[in-house]
């Protein structure tokens, strides 16, 4: 017995050890996986993001080097906290917080202490940082904006969030990706493909040699440069005109469908979304629920189109043969369609044919045309559906299919729509508001601009798009290079275009004429209702205008929408005319119009619903002029917003 104790114990120990070895080495895989994770070091090679040029080849967005201040906690030696804080311009608690965060993430791996310093911010740090062991700098490529406009259409890039990483395994934590606008739409094209090299590594993260002979490596693919269809000068000018107003402008080249200009106001300088305040600034913009700068009015402002819609009804009327261009209809300051109250109209010449009907924007005229269109068919539903078919062919009532990430479908009702919505039997007069672009029809500015382009082209359009060239090569995408025809025969456009031309000559926009350019346009005044404190309240009307020019060789089709801009000719027509002149002549001769827009503000109008007091709408007196006394309301310093 005494001789056996040690032998017995050693046998037991040996068996236990071998069993344990069997468990660790053979029966479980978890340790093997961890060993594989340990052994790989992945080094990414980030290609430079593609540049963005305007249609004339002017650089809008390039890249700049940015610097992240990094730390590897285990390498940090004792240091003068105060001096470092002063150098990095942060307070002590923030530095210590960041250090603790880094430590708890990993003592061996580097963490970001301060992200994205610009060249200027980094310069003073550069020399000094070497003194602090464990701290170092990582270079990164960030966006550099060479323009101070077009922020919302260009979009911005931001570090990807975890849900994006889950959706697209291409991204890793800390990667940058387009978050809105062109940056988001053309993310794949702009970013290229980041290269990936996997090394075997040791415990300190030093790479040894290529892992499995580079079997899992990925080649870097450079980002592609984009040339967009925007015109730099037009963008800048449009934003200037929209100062102290809210709304959107969309200009399209009818011959190609290229978006010449896409403006939303209020707007901001895109470069505020770079640098060390970027998070603060982005949040400020996203959280501004009063001015809503994040809301791209050119693409997302879905309202009743108002009078510009009349020209479509004229076209449909001609196509359906329910009216002849020179057939005169009467207007008795309104049209009694049998409702409680006749559809009102302002004072103008009467009776009138189509040309004047458009020029004077006569409600009665179009109510009668509309009624004839609907009543031509055997039932209101059939008439409505037929009307819908024609209107929809102009790209209204559905997403247009342009290459920007936001938008609204708009709405063009059909027979079904009213059958579902009205419990009682309905007839053409029930939906009479559609005749004048109020009621159930809704559209966005880009849809109106596209509709205008289709009229300018006498019956077809190209899907509006913002991409022109990729890496210098013009795009060939079928979607953007094939004509989409409307249901209206080309010959019916001429009388309507004559009418739109008359709008400038003798009609509602005669004070916005541009010498030397024959412009065709149509004003619009859109009723504006808003829910305030649970009650629907009517506010000052929106100002809408569509136009194209020159009449016989259209180079630009434009839609302007100004919130609370009173009536079509007061703001929108002026802006449209100036934009057209800027685009065609390259200079401004109607400096009086320009002067009016630069010195007039609608901010007082936007402040009304928030004043808490009773207020007047659609005031007859123009009180928009900015003076020294009213500057604080009329041209307020909006901080980030221009």
């Amino acid at each position, binding site marked *: 017995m005494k001789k056996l*104790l040690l032998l017995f114990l*050693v046998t037991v*120990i040996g068996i236990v050890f071998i069993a344990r*070895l*069997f468990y660790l080495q053979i029966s479980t895989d978890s340790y093997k996986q*961890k060993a594989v994770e*340990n*052994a790989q070091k992945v080094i990414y090679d980030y290609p430079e993001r593609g540049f963005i040029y305007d249609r004339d080849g002017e650089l809008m967005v390039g890249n700049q080097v940015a610097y992240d201040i990094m730390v590897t906690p285990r390498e940090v030696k004792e240091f003068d906290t105060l001096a470092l804080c002063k150098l990095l311009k942060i307070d002590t608690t923030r530095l210590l917080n960041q250090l603790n965060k880094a430590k708890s993430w990993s003592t061996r791996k580097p963490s970001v202490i301060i992200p994205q310093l610009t060249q200027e911010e980094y310069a003073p740090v550069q020399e000094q940082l070497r003194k602090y062991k464990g701290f170092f700098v990582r270079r990164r490529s960030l966006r550099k904006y060479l323009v101070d406009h077009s922020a919302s259409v260009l979009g911005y890039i931001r570090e990807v969030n975890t849900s994006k990483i889950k959706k697209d395994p291409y991204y890793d934590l800390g990667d940058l990706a387009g978050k809105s606008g062109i940056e988001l739409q053309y993310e794949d094209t702009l970013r290229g493909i980041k290269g990936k090299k996997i090394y075997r590594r*040791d415990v300190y993260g030093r790479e*040894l040699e290529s892992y499995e002979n580079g079997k899992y490596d990925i080649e870097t693919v450079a980002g592609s440069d984009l040339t967009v269809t925007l015109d730099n000068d037009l963008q800048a000018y449009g934003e200037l005109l929209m100062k102290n107003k809210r709304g959107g402008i969309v200009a399209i080249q009818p011959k190609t469908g290229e978006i010449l200009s896409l403006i939303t106001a209020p707007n901001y300088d895109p470069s505020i979304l770079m640098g060390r305040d970027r998070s603060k600034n982005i949040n400020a913009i996203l959280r501004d629920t009063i001015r809503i700068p994040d809301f791209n009015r050119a693409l997302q402002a879905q309202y009743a189109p108002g009078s510009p819609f009349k020209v479509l009804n004229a076209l449909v009327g001609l196509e359906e043969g329910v009216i002849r261009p020179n057939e005169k209809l009467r207007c008795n300051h309104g049209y009694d369609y049998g409702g409680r109250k006749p559809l009102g109209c302002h004072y103008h010449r009467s009776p009138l044919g189509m040309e004047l009907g458009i020029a004077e924007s006569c409600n009665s005229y179009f109510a009668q045309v509309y009624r004839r269109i609907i009543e031509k068919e055997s039932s209101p539903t059939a008439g409505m559906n037929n009307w819908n078919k024609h209107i929809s062919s102009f790209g209204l009532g559905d997403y247009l299919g342009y290459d920007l990430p936001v938008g609204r479908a708009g709405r063009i009702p059909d027979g079904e729509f009213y059958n579902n919505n009205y419990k009682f039997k309905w007839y053409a007069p029930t939906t009479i508001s559609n005749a004048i672009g109020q009621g159930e029809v809704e559209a966005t500015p880009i849809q109106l601009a596209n509709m205008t382009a289709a009229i300018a082209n006498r019956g077809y359009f190209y899907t509006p798009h913002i991409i022109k060239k990729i890496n210098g090569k013009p795009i060939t995408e079928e979607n953007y290079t094939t004509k989409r025809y409307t249901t209206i025969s080309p010959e019916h456009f001429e009388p309507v275009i004559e009418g739109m031309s008359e709008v400038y000559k003798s009609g509602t926009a005669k004070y916005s004429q541009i010498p030397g350019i024959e412009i065709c346009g149509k004003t619009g005044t859109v009723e504006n209702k808003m829910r305030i404190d649970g009650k629907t309240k009517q506010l000052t009307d929106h100002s809408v205008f569509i136009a194209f020019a020159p009449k016989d060789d259209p180079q630009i089709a434009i839609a302007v929408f100004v919130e609370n801009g009173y009536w079509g000719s007061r703001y929108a027509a002026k802006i449209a005319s100036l934009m057209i002149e800027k685009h065609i002549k390259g200079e401004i001769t109607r400096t009086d119009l320009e002067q009016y827009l630069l010195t007039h503000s609608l901010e007082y109008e936007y402040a009304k619903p928030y004043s808490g007091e009773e207020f007047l709408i659609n005031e007859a007196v123009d009180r928009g002029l900015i003076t020294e006394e009213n500057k604080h309301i009329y041209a307020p310093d909006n901080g980030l917003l221009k």
Partner: protein
Amino acid sequence: MRIGDKPKYDFYTIFIFLGLITIGWLAIYSSVNVETYSSIWDMNVEYGKQFIWIALALLLIVIILAIEPKFYERFAGVIYVVSMLSLLGLFVFGKEISGARSWYSFGSVGLQPSEFAKFATALAVAKYLSQLNVTLKNKKHLLIVGGIILLPPLLIIPQPDPGSALVYSAFFFTLYREGLSLWFLTLGLLAVGLFVGALAIGPILVSISVLVVVVVMYLLSRKRKHKKRLAPPRKWLYIITAFLAIGYTFSTQFVFENVLSDRHRNRIDIILGRVEDNKGIGYNLNQSLITIGHGGWTGTGLLKGSQTQGGYVPEQHTDFVFTAIAEELGFVGASAVVLLFMALIYRLVIMAERQRNQFARVYGYGVAGIFTIHFFVNIGMVLGLLPTVGIPLPFVSYGGSGLWGFTVLLFVFVKLDAHRMSYDH
């Protein structure tokens, strides 16, 4: 030595020794990042140095085998005294390396006297117990033997080097073989069991278990009342035992929480799964397990283990050398090392039992016990079965003092064994 008497060396032992030395050197070579260095013979790196130590150890073996066996018995006392003085001298002349004052430094060469103290103690215990009138039944003699064994750990613990001190528990096997009651072992195991149990499930649950066991044992013993040759159950004995056990449980718990330093407490906590910490203190152990697990059946091949080559396991060439073997030679290689150690200890016990004189037998048991403790504690720690205690794996871990200490320890016994037929008392 009588004229014409030819020594019979035990070649099993020598082969096992050579096998372990070879595996050890390969593991050291692999675990020291070889890509940075070009030559195998580079004397600035551990595997180069170890090569020298091995060469010198072989020379040492020749010397040991050349010396007459009687020398060791005669000078056992002197060797023990010198060894104890060398341990004492550390307090004055010792060099502090990574927090422990365990080394004498001669230029670039360090010497760790505690590695030789095991040999000296084994000799001294053997010498004392082999005296004619000494018996462990005698309380005074037991105390003296206890003193001889406990003196070196008392000198080693304050260095501090609790791992090396732990090795002296090996002499329990020697004393047990020479007649010490098994009660001592039972008591020892009970003490450890209660301590660990208290940490794992809390002192209150342990106390309840103790009470239950005592009550059951008491009731069982009462059943045998009618058997006259057994003493009647002594109620008070059970009650006192229970109270002592519970008192001990609570007091060690108190010591653990309040007296032990964080370093040691953490290690025990991690083994017991009381805390999980893969980045800090538990990093060694976690990486150790990953490295072993990565080996699979036959390992990654020498110099191909990503964990070993990447330097993930701290102290891999010393205390954690077994992980390098397990990763690069796999389950087969690691089991082979375990089997080699088992074989070595079996062989040593067999050799000890065949000795004709008590000195050689006691010494042999000392050697076997010391190897057993090193084997058990080192591999047990690396496999995550025991707390992290820094003691080397004999003949395999890097270190000149350790290698020499174990070589002397083993080959003195090989020498004694070789002359067992002619060398009697």
